């Protein structure tokens, strides 16, 4: 570095650092926003501190790269000085022709040194072109835009219907009605409405908490002329041996379960089987299993259980 430049070098390097900071931070922000957006698209929701760390790391790398790789050399400084102090290409010529081959070159150097001596460093402004500010604004816009990318709930676990979703069980407006049921408690006939209200349920497989508003599941015990009815644990719900009563009428309970299972697999219903419904079904299957064991030959409930477990 030429002696004549030393007093200007500090200020020009400071300007270069500011430029590198603006551009580096902009690039770091854009990089972080891209990662943030990509993670959201694939359904990964990380702690915000993680993104702040990515931003700080990326910005630091970009700033260092820009600062050290594009440091102004003698020619750049000379050009800047000529433009700022209107030196009419004196400094650039001095840098371009370093030799002292003839008298004119020697005179040229002397003249330039004299001109630079008269230049005040305070009059050398820190010039940041509009492009740097534009890059910063673009980076801010990209970062803000990334917040509007919706978190994809399905992408990584689409095959598993039991994960990361909520189910509004009120959509299942099924009235389980015991028909021709075998009562566990012999002699007792289940009749009347059973109202089950679920609270917050936890999906054990996904490890996440999902809030389920189960609504009302009305188990209307109708047409309970059969003595073989099953009563739920709370004693309010009764259901029969192999049939349910829905809005559409009497249906095989196995078919209802199959339809429900298929809907989950095909994604028409997202989420877990509500616990209350699961309890009812478990109890029902258990009773049928016991019954079939007693009867020895009726294997249908086991098949249903097996299918459900798959």
């Amino acid at each position: 570095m030429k002696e004549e430049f030393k007093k200007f070098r500090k200020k020009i390097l400071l300007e270069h650092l500011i430029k590198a900071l603006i551009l580096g931070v902009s690039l770091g922000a854009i990089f972080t926003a891209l990662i943030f957006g990509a993670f959201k698209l694939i359904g990964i929701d990380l702690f915000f501190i993680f993104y702040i760390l990515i931003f700080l790391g990326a910005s630091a790398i970009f700033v260092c790269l820009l600062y050290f790789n594009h440091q102004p050399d003698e020619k750049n400084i000379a050009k800047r000085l000529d433009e700022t102090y209107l030196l009419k290409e004196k400094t650039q010529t001095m840098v371009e022709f370093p030799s002292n081959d003839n008298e004119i070159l020697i005179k040229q150097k002397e003249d330039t040194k004299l001109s630079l001596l008269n230049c005040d460093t305070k009059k050398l402004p820190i010039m940041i072109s509009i492009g740097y500010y534009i890059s910063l604004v673009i980076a801010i816009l990209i970062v803000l835009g990334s917040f509007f990318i919706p978190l994809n709930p399905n992408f990584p676990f689409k095959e598993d219907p039991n994960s990361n979703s909520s189910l509004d069980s009120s959509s299942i407006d099924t009235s389980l009605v015991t028909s021709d049921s075998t009562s566990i408690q012999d002699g007792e006939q289940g009749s009347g409405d059973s109202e089950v209200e679920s609270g917050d349920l936890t999906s054990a497989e996904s490890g996440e908490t999902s809030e389920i508003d189960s609504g009302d599941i009305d188990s209307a015990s109708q047409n309970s002329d059969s003595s073989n009815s099953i009563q739920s644990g709370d004693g309010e719900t009764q259901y029969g041996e192999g049939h349910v009563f829905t809005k559409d009428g009497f249906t095989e309970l196995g078919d209802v379960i199959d339809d429900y299972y298929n809907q989950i697999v095909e994604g028409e219903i997202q989420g877990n089987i509500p616990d209350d419904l699961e309890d009812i079904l478990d109890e029902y299957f258990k009773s049928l299993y016991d019954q079939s064991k007693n009867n020895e030959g009726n294997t249908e409930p086991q098949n249903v259980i097996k299918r459900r477990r798959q």
Partner: protein
Amino acid sequence: MKKLEISEFATLVKKIKEEVNKDVVGQEEVIYNVIIAILAGGNVLLEGVPGVGKTRLVRSLSQTLSLPFSRIQFTPDLMPSDLIGMNIIEKDEQGKLNTRFQKGPIFANLILADEINRATPKTQSALLEVMQEHSVTVSNQTYKIAEPFFVMATENPIEQDGTYPLPEAQMDRFMFKLVMEFPSNEELESIVNMTQVTMDEVATKIIDGPTILAMRALAKDVPVLPEIVTYAMKLVSSSHPELKVTSEVAKKYIRYGASPRAGQALITTAKIRALIEGRFNVSYEDIDALSYPILRHRIKINYNAINEHLSCDDVISLLIQENKKGH
């Protein structure tokens, strides 16, 4: 060759200007550019209405530069031999007939070709060799002309009857085309007052031929940034509408562009201008300032420019602006 101190360069030019200004009132820019052309070894075409001091300027310069001066009045019947000379037959002392080359008025250092466009193209063409090579060829014999050699031609922009416009090849041999504007009222007053005392030129000798050559040699060492050379060449090539590297201005307003001689002239004269301005390096400013006298007779504007009332200088300004954006 005579050795000259760099510090003397600007001082001498300043003195020449002062001396010429004793005879020519105003016309500062023309005088300044004529001195640049002389020091660069170029020829000058002076254009102006009658009476603005074209001939007086050249006569005054010849006195200041103390150079042999020839004034040739160009007329339609002027022949090439009237300019360059001819072989004549003469008897020697023994009565034997011999041919001898009789030098014409062109054999001087400073030539004033007054109203050059009045001579026929044949006579105008006789100047081509002498203007470019500074030599004359007659009957297979080439005669060198003493340096420094300059041709200063004048032409009248108004009176075009019975004139022969200079061909492009001839125009290109003039380094500068300078336009002498009509003087202002104050200048007119000064001219009238000055000529009441004497009509003769009063300028005195400042420099001589060898000093001019030394100044020219000195100017050659002035450093020029490669970027400035590129800029000058770009300015020239962008004046050609048919080239790929052309400019929007050329496409729109120029019929044909400047020759490579314009590029040479830009750099050569820029060095001299830099020294006159007290700098030891060429600046973009020198190129821009000299673009007008160098390009104005080398580029031909088209009908679009005429239609939009743009002069050649206006088009050159646009060319400079467009090229400035790029660098």
